[in-house]
C-alpha cells in the first residue's frame, strides 16, 4: 500500500523549483502528400501542426480543445514521441526530447504515457489483461514473475477493477472497464506525464464521470501531470486547470480555465462555447448560438493570414493578410493569450454581428 | 495506345526475366568442377575420350565468364547446346517433342477453364442445390488428388477395361493430328481430363466463391431492379467482375500447369517436352535440362503477359496504371 502514497520527485534535469514539466516550443508537423506510382513526388503538405507553443505546469492539467482535424491528436503524438516533429522542440522535465532515437527515447517513455480514445481497439484482444497491464514492467524490466503480478493486481485495484480478473481477456470487460485497464497500463511505471487522447469520448456519459473522477484521484495521489485532449468543452472545463484552443494546426486562444470560459476572446472559442449544450433549458434558450458558416478548410491548403478568417463573423481585410500573434488582449491576465486582430469584447454579441454581416 | 505501352513494358520485363533465369541456370550448372560438368554433359555412358572431346569442344576449361558469354551468344542465335547422349542438337530434339506438349496444354487448359468456370457459375447461381453440393464434394476430392494418381486411376478404370473389350480408340502414347483428328483425340482425351481435373476443381471453387461475393454486391441489385433478366445480370455484370481474380490466379497457376504437364506426359507416355526432360535426369543429360529450363521460363513469362493483357481488358482501372 505504501506505493500508492508515493509522490513523484522532480526529474534530474530540472532546476529546483521549475514548475513547468512540458514545454512545447514552435512545434511544426507537416505530412508530405505524395503522388502514387514509381517515382513519388511530394506535391504538398498536410499542415497538421503549424508552430504551436505551449507549456504544461507540473501536477496540473492542460486541456487541449479543437474539432476533428485541428491537429490536437497529432500534437499529442509529437509530444509522446510517436511521430517525429518537422521542426520545433519538445522539452520534457528540462531535457530536450525532440526526435530522439528509439533507444534514447526509451528511458523517457517511462515518464510519458498515453491513454487512448477507443477502449475497443487500444487493447490487444488476444492477450490477457494481466499481460497487457504488465507490459510496461516487462518492457522496461522493472519487475518480473510474481512481483510483477502483485504490482499489476495492485494497479487493477487502484483503478477500480477486480484483481482476480487478471487472466481475463479484454472482450470480457465493458467499455468503461477497458478504459480503466488502459489507465492502469499507463500508470504502471509511475509516469510524470500522461497524455489523455479523448479518453472518455467513446464512453457513455454516466461512465465518463467515473473515469474522469478516477483520473482526478490519480492526479492527486501521484502528482501526475495531464495533457487532456477532448472536443467536449464541458469535460475539459471539469478536469483542466488551463486550456488551449486549437484551430487548423494553430493555437487560437489559451489560458487558465475560468477567464477563457467566462470571457472568450477569440471568435472561434466563443462559437464553440455557444454551441455546447446546456443542461438548464432556460440557459439554453437564453444563449444565442453562433453558427459558423462554411466547412473547416483543408489543412493542405490553409487560408492565408488568420486561418479562421473565412468563417469569422468579425473578419476584415487585415485578417486575410496578416497572421495574428498570440498575445494577451486588453483587460486580460498575462496568461490569457489570444491570436486575433479583433478579439471579442465584453458584452459583444457575436450572433448579432453575424446576422448583420450576412 | 496505353495498351501498347503496357505491352512493350511487359515484354521488355519478360526478356529480362528470361535472361535472369538463363543466367541463374547457367551458373548453377556450369560453375562446378570441370570434370563433373564434362561428365554430365557427355552423358553417363561416355568414355574418357568423349569426355575430353566435350571439354575441348565446349571450352569447359575456359574462365567461367568466357563460357557465359558463349552461352548467351548461342542463346541469341537460337542454339541451346548439344546433347551428346542423343547425338543431336538440343533445339532439334525439343522441336520434335513440342507437338505433344502443345496438344496437351491447349486441350487441357480449354477443358479446365470451361468445366471449372461453368460448374463454378452454375454452383453459385444455384447455391445449396443438389448440383452445388455434389459438385463441391467432387471439388474436394479433386483437390486432394495428385495428378499422377488421377492419371493412373483413369488408365486402370477406363483404358484397361476398354482394351480388354477390344475398344482401342482410347490409347496411351501420342499420335499427331496428321494421323487423323479422331485418333489424335483418342490419345489425348484421358491426358486432358487428367490435367484438367485438379485445376478445374480449384477454379470451380474460386469462381463460385467470387461469383457469390459479387452477386451480393449492391450494383447487382441495382441491375436487377432495372429489370434486366437474371441471365444478363449474372453474365454481363456478375461474371465479369468475378472473373478478374480468377484471371489473376491464372498467372500464378502457370507454374502449376507446367508441373502438371510434365507429370501427365510421364503418366501417359506422350513423349513431350516434359517427359523428355524428366528422363534426362535418369541419364544425367544436362543440355536437355538447360534447354527445358529456358523454354519453361519463356513460356511462363509469355503466359503471364497474356494473363496481364486479359486482366487489363477486363478491368479498365488497370490500364491507367
Amino acid at each position: 500500500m505504501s506505493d500508492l502514497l508515493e509522490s513523484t520527485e522532480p526529474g534530474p534535469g530540472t532546476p529546483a523549483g521549475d514548475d513547468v514539466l512540458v514545454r512545447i516550443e514552435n512545434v511544426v508537423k507537416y505530412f508530405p502528400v505524395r503522388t502514387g506510382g514509381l517515382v513519388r513526388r511530394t506535391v504538398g503538405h498536410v499542415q497538421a501542426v503549424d508552430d504551436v507553443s505551449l507549456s504544461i505546469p507540473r501536477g496540473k492539467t492542460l486541456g487541449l480543445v479543437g474539432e476533428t482535424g485541428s491537429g490536437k491528436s497529432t500534437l499529442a503524438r509529437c509530444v509522446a514521441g510517436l511521430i517525429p516533429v518537422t521542426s520545433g522542440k519538445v522539452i520534457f522535465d528540462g531535457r530536450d526530447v525532440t526526435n530522439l532515437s528509439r533507444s534514447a527515447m526509451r528511458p523517457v517513455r517511462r515518464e510519458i504515457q498515453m491513454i487512448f480514445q477507443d477502449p475497443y481497439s487500444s487493447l490487444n484482444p488476444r492477450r490477457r489483461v494481466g499481460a497487457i497491464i504488465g507490459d510496461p514492467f516487462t518492457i522496461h524490466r522493472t519487475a518480473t514473475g510474481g512481483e510483477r503480478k502483485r504490482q499489476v493486481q495492485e494497479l487493477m485495484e487502484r483503478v477500480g477493477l477486480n484483481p482476480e480478473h487478471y487472466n481475463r481477456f479484454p472482450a470480457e470487460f465493458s467499455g468503461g472497464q477497458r478504459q480503466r485497464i488502459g489507465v492502469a497500463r499507463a500508470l504502471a511505471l509511475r509516469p510524470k506525464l500522461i497524455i489523455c487522447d479523448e479518453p472518455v469520448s467513446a464512453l457513455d456519459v454516466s461512465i465518463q464521470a467515473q473515469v474522469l473522477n478516477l483520473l482526478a484521484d490519480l492526479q492527486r495521489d501521484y502528482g501526475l501531470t495531464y495533457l487532456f485532449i477532448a472536443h467536449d468543452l464541458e469535460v475539459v472545463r471539469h478536469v483542466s486547470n488551463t486550456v488551449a484552443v486549437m484551430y487548423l494546426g494553430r493555437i487560437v486562444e489559451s489560458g487558465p480555465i475560468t477567464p477563457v470560459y467566462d470571457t472568450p476572446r477569440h471568435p472561434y472559442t466563443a462559437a464553440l462555447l455557444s454551441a455546447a449544450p446546456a443542461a438548464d433549458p432556460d440557459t439554453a434558450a437564453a444563449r444565442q448560438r453562433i453558427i459558423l458558416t462554411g466547412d473547416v478548410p483543408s489543412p493542405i491548403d490553409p487560408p492565408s493570414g488568420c486561418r479562421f478568417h473565412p468563417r469569422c463573423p468579425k473578419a476584415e481585410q487585415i485578417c486575410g493578410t496578416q497572421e495574428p500573434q498570440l498575445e494577451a488582449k486588453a483587460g486580460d491576465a498575462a496568461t490569457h493569450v489570444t491570436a486575433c486582430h479583433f478579439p471579442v469584447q465584453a458584452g459583444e454579441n457575436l450572433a448579432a454581428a453575424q446576422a448583420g454581416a450576412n | 495506345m496505353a495498351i501498347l505501352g503496357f505491352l512493350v513494358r511487359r515484354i521488355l520485363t519478360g526478356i529480362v526475366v528470361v535472361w535472369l533465369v538463363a543466367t541463374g541456370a547457367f551458373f548453377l550448372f556450369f560453375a562446378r568442377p570441370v570434370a563433373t560438368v564434362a561428365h554430365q554433359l557427355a552423358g553417363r555412358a561416355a568414355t574418357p575420350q568423349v569426355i575430353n572431346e566435350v571439354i575441348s569442344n565446349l571450352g569447359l576449361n575456359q574462365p567461367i565468364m568466357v563460357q557465359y558469354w558463349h552461352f548467351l551468344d548461342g542463346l541469341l542465335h537460337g542454339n541451346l547446346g548439344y546433347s551428346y547422349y542423343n547425338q543431336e542438337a538440343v533445339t532439334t530434339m525439343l522441336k520434335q517433342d513440342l507437338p505433344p506438349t502443345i496438344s496437351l496444354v491447349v486441350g487441357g487448359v480449354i477443358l479446365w477453364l470451361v468445366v471449372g468456370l461453368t460448374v463454378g457459375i452454375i454452383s453459385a447461381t444455384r447455391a445449396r442445390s443438389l448440383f452445388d453440393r455434389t459438385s463441391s464434394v467432387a471439388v474436394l476430392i479433386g483437390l486432394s488428388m495428385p495428378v499422377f494418381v488421377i492419371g493412373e486411376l483413369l488408365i486402370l478404370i477406363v483404358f484397361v477395361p476398354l482394351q480388354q473389350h477390344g475398344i482401342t480408340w482410347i490409347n496411351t502414347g501420342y499420335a499427331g493430328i496428321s494421323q487423323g483428328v479422331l485418333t489424335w483425340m483418342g490419345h489425348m482425351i484421358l491426358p486432358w481430363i487428367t490435367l484438367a481435373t485438379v485445376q478445374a476443381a480449384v477454379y470451380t471453387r474460386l469462381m463460385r466463391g467470387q461469383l457469390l461475393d459479387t452477386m451480393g454486391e449492391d450494383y447487382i441489385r441495382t441491375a436487377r431492379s432495372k429489370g434486366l433478366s437474371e441471365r444478363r445480370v449474372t453474365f454481363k455484370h456478375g461474371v465479369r467482375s468475378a472473373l478478374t481474380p480468377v484471371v489473376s490466379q491464372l498467372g500464378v497457376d502457370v507454374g502449376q500447369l507446367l508441373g502438371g504437364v510434365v507429370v501427365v506426359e510421364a503418366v501417359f507416355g506422350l513423349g513431350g517436352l516434359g517427359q523428355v526432360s524428366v528422363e534426362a535426369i535418369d541419364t544425367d543429360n544436362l543440355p536437355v535440362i538447360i534447354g527445358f529450363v529456358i523454354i519453361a521460363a519463356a513460356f511462363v513469362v509469355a503466359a503471364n503477359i497474356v494473363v496481364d493483357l486479359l486482366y487489363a481488358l477486363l478491368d479498365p482501372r488497370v490500364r491507367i496504371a
Partner: protein
Amino acid sequence: MSITGIEAASQEAAAGESALDTGAAKIQGRSQWQLTWRRLRQDKVAMAALVVILVIVLLAIFAPVFVSFTHHPPNIAYPNTGEDAAGNPVAPGTNGFWLGTDGTGRDLFIRILYGARISLFVGFFTTFVGVVAGLAVGLMAGYFGGFVDTVLARFTDAVLAFPYIVLALALAVVLGPSLTVIIGVISFFSWAAIARIVRGQTLSIKEKEYIEAARSLGAGPFRIMIFDILPNLLAPVLVLATLYIPTAIVFEATLSYLGLGIQPPTASWGNILADAQNFYSTSWWYVVFPALVLLITTLAFNLLGDGVRDAMDPRTERVFAAGRGRRGRKGREKRQVLAEDGSDAAHAAPYVPPAEGS
C-alpha cells in the same frame, strides 16, 4: 453541470458492476483456443478426419511392429513366395502378404507403411519450415513496410509464381535425386503462400491502436511483432498449415513418381505408384492400395483444415462449406450454437457476463 448531476447515478452503476465482479471469483477467461477446440469437437467430419490422421500416424510410427508380424522387411524381395509363375505380383492375402506384393515381390502393405513415414515426415517438416519462414518474412514485410516490404513482397510473389518442376529438375540434375532435394524444393515453396497472408494481416493489424499503445510504452519492433501481432496471426496460420500438409505430401509423391526424389528401393508412395504403372492389367492392387492411402490421407488433412477454419470463425457461412460431405452439414445444422464468448473483440459488443453454468 451535466457531469456532476449524473455522478450519483453512475456510482450506482459502478456498485452494480463490482457486485457482479466479486461474485465471479477467480474466473479464467476462455482463450480462443479453448473455444475453437470446443467447436471443433462438435464437427463430426473434422473429428473423423482427425482420427484417420492419427491412425495413419500411428501405423507409420509402428511400422517395424508390423514387420515383425509379417516377417517381411520393406526392401526385401521374395521372388518365391511374392511372385507368381509369370513374375507378376501376387494378390492380397496370398502367402502372408496382407495387401499383396509389388513388382519385385516385396510386401506391399509394409512398403506402404514405410512410404507413410516419408510422406508424413516431409509433410510436417516442410510445413513447419514454411510456417516459421513465412511468419518471419510476412511479419517483417508487413511491419517494416517501405523498402523492406517492396523487396520481400516481390520476392514472395516471384517464388509463388515459379514453376516448381523447373527447380526440381535443376536441383535433381545438380545434386542427384534424393530426400534432400525434395525437402529443399518443397520448403522453397511452402513459405510463400503463408508469407503473403501473414503480410496482409500484419499490414492491417499494424494500424490498430493497441500497436500504437505498445510503441508508446517503448516496445521495440521485434517485441511488437512477436507479442502483439503474432497472437492475432496464429489462427489463420494454423489453418494454412493444416491445409498445406496435404499439398506437401502430394508434392513429395509427385516428385518421387517422376524419379526426382526418393529413389527405389526406399519406399515412397510416389515411386511405388510409378512402378505400379507397369502392372495395370495384371495387378490392380498394386495401383489401388497406395493410391487409396494417399487419397485418404490428403482428404483427411483437407477436411480437418476446413473444420479448423470453420471452428476458428463461427461467423463463416456454415450451411454450405465448399466441399463438405452431406454428413458434415447435417451434423453442423443439428449442433447448438455456442455462446459467443467474445472471442473476437473487434466485433464484440461490451461484454455481458453469461449466466453461471452456461
